[in-house]
C-alpha cells in the first residue's frame, strides 16, 4: 500500500521537481526590446481581495490603454507580470525578488500595496535601486527623501491625511476654532496601520482643544458591539473610522444599531470604497470618507480605457461595472503616476529608451503633475495635483472628501483639501524627527544636497 503510493507519486513528483528547477533557474529572458517592465504584485484572494483585485484591474488597464493609444511611453511599451502576494509579507518579498530583474532594465518601480510588504522592501529596494512606491500607505516619514532615497509615499501619507481630516472637520463645524471642546473618537483597526494616525491626532487635539478618545477594534473587526456602546457613552461629535476590510461595514451597521448618525462618521481612504459600504446596505447612507482619487468614469482617461481596452474585450475586470469604482480608479492613479515618472525619467536620460530603477527614482523625485499636466492626461479633478522633490517624496498631501448617498459616492469638496499650512509644518517636523531616528538606528547618512525644492 505504502510502496504503491510511493510508486504512484514518484514519477510526477520527480517531473514536478525537474520542471521547478528548470523554471526557476532558467532566469530571465533578456532582450534589448524597447520595453519597460513594471511588476503587478497585488492580491486577488483572501480577506482583502476585493480591494486588491480592483486596484490591480485599474493599474493594468491603464498600461494597456497607454500601449494601445500612445504605443507606450515614447515608443517604449510597458510590460507587466502579475504576482499574487496574498497581502502576506513573505509572499510579497518572493514576488519582489522574482520580478526585480525582469525586463531589459529590471523592475522600474514597485507598488507593494501593503504597508507590511512596503516595510519589508525598504532595505531591499534601496539596495537594488528600485523605487518602492507606497501611494497612500506605508511609512509617512519616508517623505524625507534624504533618508529614504528609494521609498515614495506619494500624494499623501496617513499623517497628512489625519491633519487634512481635522481641517475638514473644522470646516464642517464652521471653522477650526469651533473644534474646541468637541469630542472626537478614533475607531481604529488594531494593527500597525490602524495606529498610524494616533500621534498626529493627539498633537492636533492639544492644538485645537478637541477631546480625542481612541478605541481599538481587534482584527478582523466583525464584532463591534462593545466599541459602539462605548462610543454611545461618550456621545462624540465625530467618529474617525480607520478601518480595513470587514471592519468598515460592521462599524456602519453597529453605528446604526446604536443610533449613531452616519453623517458624523468620517472614514480613511481605505474605508471609503464601494466594498466598504455596500455590505452595510442602507446603514451606510450619509457616511463620509477621504480619498485621493475620484469615483466615476467621466474622466477622459477612463473613457480612453473603455475605448481602447474594453471595446476590444481586453479589459482586466471580469465585471465591467467595477470600472470607475473607487478601487479601480485608485489603480489608475497608481499607474498614471508610474507612467508619468517613467516619462519624466526618459525626458531627462534619453527619450525612447527603457529607463532603470535608479532613473525612475529620479523621475519620481521630479514629478510635476500640476493641473495643466493632469488635464493633458485626462485626469483633471480625478487625482490631486502633486509636485515632488528630492526631500519631498510625498507631494501635495491633498485629499478630497466624499459621501455615500446610498447608491454611489459623491464628491463633497469641489477642491482638494490639505492640512492647514501650520499643520503641514507640524506633520513635516514629525516626519523629519522620525526619519532622523530611523537614520540613526540604521546608521544611514542622509543624502546631501537634497532639498524640498528642485
Amino acid at each position, binding site marked *: 500500500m505504502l510502496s504503491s*503510493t510511493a510508486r504512484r507519486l514518484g514519477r510526477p513528483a520527480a517531473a514536478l521537481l525537474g520542471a521547478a528547477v528548470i523554471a526557476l533557474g532558467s532566469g530571465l529572458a533578456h532582450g534589448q526590446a524597447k520595453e519597460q517592465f513594471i511588476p503587478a504584485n497585488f492580491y486577488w484572494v483572501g480577506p482583502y481581495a476585493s480591494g486588491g483585485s480592483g486596484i490591480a484591474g485599474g493599474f493594468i488597464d491603464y498600461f494597456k490603454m497607454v500601449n494601445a493609444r500612445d504605443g507606450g511611453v515614447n515608443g517604449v511599451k510597458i510590460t507587466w507580470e502579475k504576482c499574487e502576494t496574498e497581502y*502576506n*509579507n513573505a509572499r510579497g518579498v518572493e514576488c519582489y525578488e522574482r520580478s526585480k*530583474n525582469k525586463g531589459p532594465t529590471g523592475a522600474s518601480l514597485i507598488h507593494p500595496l501593503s*504597508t507590511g510588504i512596503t*516595510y519589508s522592501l525598504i532595505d531591499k529596494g534601496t539596495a537594488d535601486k528600485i523605487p518602492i512606491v507606497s501611494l497612500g500607505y506605508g511609512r509617512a516619514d519616508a517623505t524625507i527623501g534624504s533618508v529614504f532615497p528609494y521609498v515614495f509615499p506619494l500624494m499623501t501619507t496617513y499623517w497628512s491625511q489625519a491633519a487634512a481630516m481635522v481641517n475638514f472637520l473644522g470646516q464642517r463645524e464652521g471653522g477650526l476654532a469651533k473644534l474646541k471642546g468637541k469630542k472626537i473618537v478614533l475607531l481604529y483597526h488594531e494593527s500597525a496601520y490602524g495606529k498610524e494616525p494616533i500621534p498626529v491626532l493627539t498633537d492636533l487635539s492639544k492644538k485645537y482643544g478637541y477631546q480625542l478618545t481612541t478605541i481599538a477594534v481587534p482584527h478582523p473587526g466583525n464584532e463591534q458591539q462593545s466599541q459602539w456602546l462605548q462610543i454611545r457613552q461618550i456621545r462624540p461629535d465625530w467618529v474617525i473610522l480607520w478601518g480595513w476590510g470587514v471592519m468598515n461595514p460592521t462599524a456602519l451597521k453597529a453605528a446604526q444599531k446604536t443610533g449613531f448618525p452616519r453623517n458624523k462618521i468620517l472614514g480613511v481612504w481605505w474605508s471609503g470604497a464601494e466594498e466598504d459600504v455596500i455590505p452595510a446596505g442602507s446603514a451606510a447612507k450619509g457616511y463620509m470618507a477621504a480619498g485621493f482619487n475620484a469615483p466615476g468614469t467621466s474622466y477622459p482617461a477612463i473613457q480612453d480605457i473603455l475605448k481602447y481596452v474594453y471595446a476590444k474585450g481586453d479589459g*482586466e475586470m471580469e465585471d465591467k461595472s467595477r470600472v470607475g469604482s473607487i478601487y479601480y480608479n485608485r489603480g489608475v492613479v497608481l499607474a498614471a503616476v508610474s507612467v508619468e515618472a517613467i516619462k519624466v525619467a526618459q525626458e531627462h536620460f534619453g527619450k525612447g529608451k527603457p529607463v532603470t530603477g535608479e532613473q525612475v527614482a529620479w523621475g519620481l523625485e521630479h514629478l510635476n503633475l500640476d493641473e495643466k499636466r493632469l488635464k493633458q492626461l485626462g485626469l483633471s479633478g480625478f487625482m490631486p495635483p502633486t509636485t515632488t522633490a528630492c526631500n519631498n517624496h510625498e507631494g501635495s498631501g491633498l485629499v478630497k472628501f466624499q459621501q455615500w448617498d446610498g447608491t454611489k459616492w459623491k464628491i463633497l469638496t469641489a477642491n482638494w483639501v490639505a492640512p492647514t499650512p501650520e499643520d503641514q509644518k507640524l506633520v513635516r517636523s514629525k516626519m523629519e524627527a522620525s526619519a532622523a531616528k530611523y537614520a540613526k538606528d540604521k546608521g544611514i547618512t542622509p543624502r546631501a544636497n537634497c532639498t524640498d525644492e528642485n
Partner: protein
Amino acid sequence: MLYRETGQFKTSYAADQQIFPLRQDRIGVVATLLVAFIVVPLVANEYWLEAILIPFLVFSLAALGLNILTGYAGQLSLGTAAFMAVGAFGAYNFELRLEWMPILGSFALGGVCAAFVGILFGLPSLRIKGFYLAVATLAAQFFVVWALTHFNWFSNYSASGVITAQRIEIFGFYFLTGQSKYLLVLAIVTLLALAAKNMVRSETGRAWMAVRDFDVAAAVIGIPVMRTKLLAFAVSSFYCGVAGALYAYAYLGTVEPDGFNLDLSFRILFMIIIGGVGSILGSFLGAAFIVLFPILLNRFAEPFANAIGIDLPSGMSSNLELIIFGGLIIFFLAVEPLGLARLWQVAKEKLRLWPFPH
C-alpha cells in the same frame, strides 16, 4: 546495488547508535551539506537565495520546532507563529537595549523568551489534551500578537508597531548579501537540526514519544509526564523563536506583529503534516514543499491554462492553491500519515533491495 547494507557490521553500540547507521546515508548527508555550504552559494542567484532558500531554511526550523512538540511529544499547537513573533521581538529588544550583546546571543535569547512563553501556554497541557489543547494554543496566538501590537515598548515606540531589524554583525563582519545571510542561516539551522536529532535519539526524545504514545504507561515507567511535556513546549518554542528571529533578521528585515498570524501557524502545521509528523527530515521536506509549491503554481498555472486554451481569471491560481493544499492535507492524512519523509524511506527500502527484489 549501490544502496546495500550487506557487509556493514556494527561492532559497538556506539556504531549502532549513529545518526545514519548506513554508510551510503552518511555519504549522502555529507554530500548534501557540502552542496548546501559550498556549491549553492556559488551558483544560486539572488532570487534563489533571498526568496526561496532563506525562507525555506527559516520555515524548516520553525517546522522542526513544531514537529518536536506535535510530532514527537504529541501536543498539537496552532500557535507556532506567536512563538516566532516572541523570538523576533525578543531578539530585537535584546539587540536594541543591550549594546554589548552579540547578535547570535540575541537570537538565542529571543529563543529563550519564546521558550518561556511556550512553557506558560503549555501549562494547560497538563490538564487538557487533544484539540482542547489545540484551541488553548490559539489563545497564545491571539494574545501574543495583541500584546506585541499593543505595548509599544516591544517595538521601541515606533508609531506603527513595526520593527526594523538591526544589521547582522559578527566580529565586525556584516551579513548584508543574500549569500552571507544564507550561509549564516544554514549554519544555525544545521546546528539546531543536529541538536534536535540528538535529542530525539536520546532519553529526551524517547520520553517525548512515550508521552505521545501512552502517557499513563510513561508515568508508570517513571517518566515525569509534566516535565516532559513542558520541556517539549520549551524546546519547541525555542526553535520557533530562533526561527522567528531569523525570519525578521535574515529574511524580511522588518516585521510587524500582524505578520505572525494564524495563517502562518497553519502553514507551518501543513509543513509537518505533508513533510512527515515525527520526522526531522520531514520538517525540511514539508517546508520545501510549502515554500515552492505556491510559487510554482503561481508561475505555471496561468501559462499552462493559456496553453490549453482556458482563460484563467485573476486569482484563480491562488484559489487553486487553497484547494490543492486542502486536498493534499486530506490526502496525506488518509493515505500517508507519515508524509513525504515516509515516502522517501519507502523509496530507500526499495533501493536496498534493488535490483533483486527478492
